[in-house]
């Protein structure tokens, strides 16, 4: 799942740094993720994993790192499992 998240990040988030250089726990906002980039990222994640982020999950923490995104996705997927 992390590989797919990294692919989506590279394609959509328009970070000023190479995604390959980021560790799973690195802060994506410090790496230059903007709020607009976050929305692009959310859209691409919703599309790729065929899910919708509920209102209460659309906060900073859930998109602050690659592992954070993975946890958020897993929690939605397990609720719908």
């Amino acid at each position, binding site marked *: 799942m992390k590989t797919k998240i990294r692919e989506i990040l590279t394609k959509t988030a328009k970070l*000023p*740094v190479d995604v390959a250089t980021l560790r799973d726990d690195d*802060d994506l*906002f*410090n*790496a*230059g993720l*903007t*709020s*607009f980039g976050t*929305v*692009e990222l*959310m*859209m691409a994640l*919703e599309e790729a994993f065929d899910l*919708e*982020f*509920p*209102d*209460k999950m*659309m*906060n*900073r*923490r*859930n998109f602050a790192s690659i592992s954070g995104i993975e946890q958020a996705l897993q929690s939605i997927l397990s609720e719908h499992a």
Partner: protein
Amino acid sequence: MAAPALRSQPAPESGAGAPAPVLVDFAGAAAAEKAMIAAARKVAKIAAEHAADVDANSRFPHEAFEALKRERLLGIMIPAAQGGAQASLPTIAEICSVLSQACSSTGMVYAMHQIKASSLVVHCGDDPWHAGFMERIAREQLLLASATTEGGGVGGDLRSSVCGVVRDGEDFTLEKEGCLISYGAQADAILITARRTPEAPPSDQVMAVMTRDQYRLERSHVWDTMGMRGTCSDNFTFAGRAPLPQVIPTPFAEIAAQSMLAHAHLLWAAIWYGIAAEAVARCESFVRTEARKKPGSTPPSALRLAELLAKLQQFKALIVAGLDRYERARGDADELSSMGFVVAMNSIKIAASQSVGEIVTQAFLICGIQGYRNDSPLSLARLMRDALSAPIMINNDRILGNTSNLLAVYKHDSSLSR
């Protein structure tokens, strides 16, 4: 203003058992906050006396700020642990509105100062340098200003910086060009944003506190505007040097999202509400006078006033609900950074800044020529000019743009109870 002292509950009538200590003294805190609002009303009288001169000469409302310092109202947001009065945001919003009814420039400077204080109060309680600085704010009644804008294409986008913090041994240096700093020349300290390092991306920002003895300001443009003339929001080139611990450890992104957004939009809304409330008060005065001229008949302007009162009530409800939402969200980082909360605060700014203009505009229909004159006690001229700043103070189009960027994924919460 001292923090409310803890008191013991009186012993029950029966006399059985020792009095139980009360952990939070709500009655004492409420009385202290009422006293702060009463003190603000005293300051407002002074502000009102000088409001016309502040406006005419586009000068700082120093009489009002001397009075605010004397009444010890500048440090009231500071926690009791740092010697402040730990006033609630609704009380501070009320003070903003009270001041703004008398002189909106005074109110706006006070609001901007409290917005800066909120960054320290919310994010710096555990940091030794900033905790010590908060003690100074409360003790010395320091006035805080903000340098978040910048030249070089950044403009009013506070989440982007060109300049960066340059480390130099135990110190850092910072140079920022073309930044608009409201009451920069009068402030005791400036909270300034910059990239974490000169090489960091524009949005990887920190905020640092620099005191007046640590920077030089070179004025590049003087504030000469239609309204809000007393905020003295001149443009400056800032150059300063201070010890590294004065950089706030929390990233600015977090400060902006978790405390500044809500404090700024709610306190600005309180200022604009104050302007609207004053316009409505002048209309009421006009209608009462008209009614006394022809006893037995209702003046035609009363109908417009009835309509205006509904708009003012709607405006008030907007702010009260926003303050309530923030009170419930504070301390919950996930809620504060949620899209729903951001949209709610952005929407408060949009609605409040539009309401003030609409209400003052409609007030002209009621007060007529008495409102249009510059020399009448019911003049609405300054209120109108001040109100016109609201939609462009962080331009509404920028805020609507920020909200619209979220709509590809955002879903609103339709409940009435949240």
